[in-house]
C-alpha cells in the first residue's frame, strides 16, 4: 500500500534545488489561491478577473456619466488605466495582509515559508488585476471605444514596474498586520487616504506647478504617468522618472524581504 521509496523526501538540498523547491511551493500556493478563492462552482476561476473587471466597468460608466473632462485622453481609457492601478494597489495590500491568517496550517510544512505565502498571494492579486486590465483593453478595442496602446512595450514595462511596487507593498502590509492589531483598524482609512498617491485621478500636468514635484514623490504616480504615456502617447504630457521608480522598488524590495524574515511562522509575531 505504501507508495514507498518513490516518494523519498531528501534531507539536504543544494542552493539550486532549494530554489526549485521555492518555485514549486509558490506555484502550489498560487493554484491553492485559485481553487479556494473562486471554488469550482459556476464560472470558477473566471472570478479571478471578473471581479476587478466589474469594478472597473462600473467606474468607467460612472465617470462617463458625470462627464469627466480629460482633455485629450478618452474618459474610458483614463478610467481603465487609473482604476486598474488603484485595484492593483488596494488588492495587493489588503489581501496580502491577511495571507498568513488564511494559510497558517500550511506553514507547518518546512518548505512553505512566510515569504512564499506573501509572494504567492500578492503575485496572485496582481495577476488578477492584470488579466482584467488586458481583457478590458481588448474588449474596449473591439467595441471601438479605445485604441490599442501607442507604445505597447512601454505600457507593459510601466505596468510591471507598478506591479513590482504593489507586490512589495503587499509583503510589507503582511508584516504590519502580523505585528500590530492597529493595522487592521486603520488599514481602511489608510488605503483611502493613499488614493491620491496612486496617481489614478489626475495627471501631474493638471496640477499647479508648485505641487507637481511633491506629487511626483510617489513612485505610483510616476508609474501611472508612464503607463498613460505608453497607452495614449505623448499627447498626455506625462512626467515621470523610470530610474526613480526602480530605485524606490529596489529599496522597497530590500525592506520587504527583511521584514518578512522577522515574522515567526508559528505565532505570526516575533
Amino acid at each position, binding site marked *: *500500500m505504501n*507508495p514507498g521509496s518513490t*516518494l523519498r523526501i531528501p534531507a539536504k538540498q543544494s542552493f539550486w534545488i532549494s530554489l526549485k523547491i521555492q518555485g514549486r511551493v509558490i506555484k502550489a500556493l498560487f493554484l*491553492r489561491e485559485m481553487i479556494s478563492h473562486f471554488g469550482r462552482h459556476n464560472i470558477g476561476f473566471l472570478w479571478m478577473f471578473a471581479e476587478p473587471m466589474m469594478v472597473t466597468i462600473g467606474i468607467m460608466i460612472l465617470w462617463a456619466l458625470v462627464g469627466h473632462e480629460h482633455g485629450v485622453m478618452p474618459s474610458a481609457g483614463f478610467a481603465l488605466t487609473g482604476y486598474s492601478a488603484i485595484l492593483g494597489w488596494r488588492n495587493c495590500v489588503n489581501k496580502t495582509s491577511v495571507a498568513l491568517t488564511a494559510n497558517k496550517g500550511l506553514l507547518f*510544512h518546512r*518548505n512553505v515559508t512566510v515569504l512564499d505565502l506573501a509572494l504567492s498571494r500578492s503575485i496572485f492579486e496582481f495577476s488578477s488585476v492584470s488579466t482584467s486590465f488586458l481583457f478590458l483593453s481588448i474588449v474596449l478595442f473591439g467595441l471601438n471605444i479605445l485604441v490599442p496602446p501607442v507604445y505597447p512595450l512601454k505600457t507593459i514595462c510601466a505596468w510591471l514596474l507598478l506591479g513590482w511596487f504593489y507586490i512589495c507593498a503587499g509583503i510589507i502590509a503582511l508584516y504590519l498586520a502580523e505585528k500590530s492589531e492597529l493595522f487592521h483598524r486603520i488599514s481602511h482609512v489608510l488605503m483611502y487616504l493613499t488614493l491620491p498617491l496612486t496617481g489614478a485621478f489626475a495627471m501631474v500636468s493638471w496640477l499647479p506647478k508648485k505641487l507637481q514635484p511633491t506629487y511626483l514623490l510617489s513612485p505610483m504616480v510616476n508609474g501611472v504617468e508612464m503607463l498613460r504615456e505608453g497607452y495614449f502617447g505623448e499627447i498626455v504630457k506625462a512626467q515621470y522618472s523610470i530610474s526613480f521608480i526602480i530605485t524606490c522598488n529596489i529599496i522597497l524590495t530590500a525592506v520587504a524581504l527583511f521584514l518578512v524574515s522577522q515574522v515567526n511562522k508559528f505565532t505570526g509575531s516575533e
Partner: protein
Amino acid sequence: MLQIERLTKSYPIKGGTLRVLNDINLNIEPGEKVAILGRNGAGKSTLIRIIGDLETPDSGNITRGMSISWPLGYSGGMQGSLTGYDNIAFLCRVYGVDQSPVADYVRSFTELGRFLKEPVKTYSAGMKGRLNFALSMAFDFDCLLIDEGLTAGDSRFADRCHQALEAKKDCAILMVAHAQESIRQFCQKAYVLEAGSLLSFNSMDDAYHHYNA
C-alpha cells in the same frame, strides 16, 4: 541522524521571560523510536515545533541529517477551506511527488470516502487527525514528528496507525505525549521533559516510573 545541541527557548510573559527549554541535548538515530513525556505546558510542543522548523530557538544547534515530517497533531499542516483532495494535491506539489498514488493511499488508509471532497474545516478533530496522519505516512520521511501521541481517531484507526508505523522499520519517530501505555509498548527510549530540562533514563520503565511519581 537528528542532532540537537544546547537548545534553549524562552517566551516573554508578564513581568519577565519564561525559559521553556533549557540546554536540551538529544540525538535520534535512523529508525529509532523515541518518546518525550511531559505534563501540560512542559514545553513538549515547543520542542517539536523547533525541530520541525516552525519556530527558531534562542540558541543551540539542530543538525537535520534526515528528512523530517511536519509536526503531526490535530491541527496544522492543512488549509481549512480546501477539500481533503485539494490538500493532498497541494502537498504533493509542495513535496514534488505524483498525486494519484498518494491520493489512493490516503483514501484507503483514512476511510474518509466522500468526505475527502468536502472542505477540511468541516471535519471533526478525529477526521482531521486521520487525514494528517495518513498524509505523513504517504510521504517517505526519515523521521516523523508526532505531537500528542497516536490519539487521532478511534481504536480501529489507532491499530492501523500502529501497524503502519511498525512496517516503517527505517523510519525514526519522535513522539511527545503524556505517559500512555500504548507508547510504552511502541518506543524503545523515553525522556521526561521537566522544568525545561530533558531527563534521560536507562529504560522505558524508569522513565514512566519517574513521570508517574
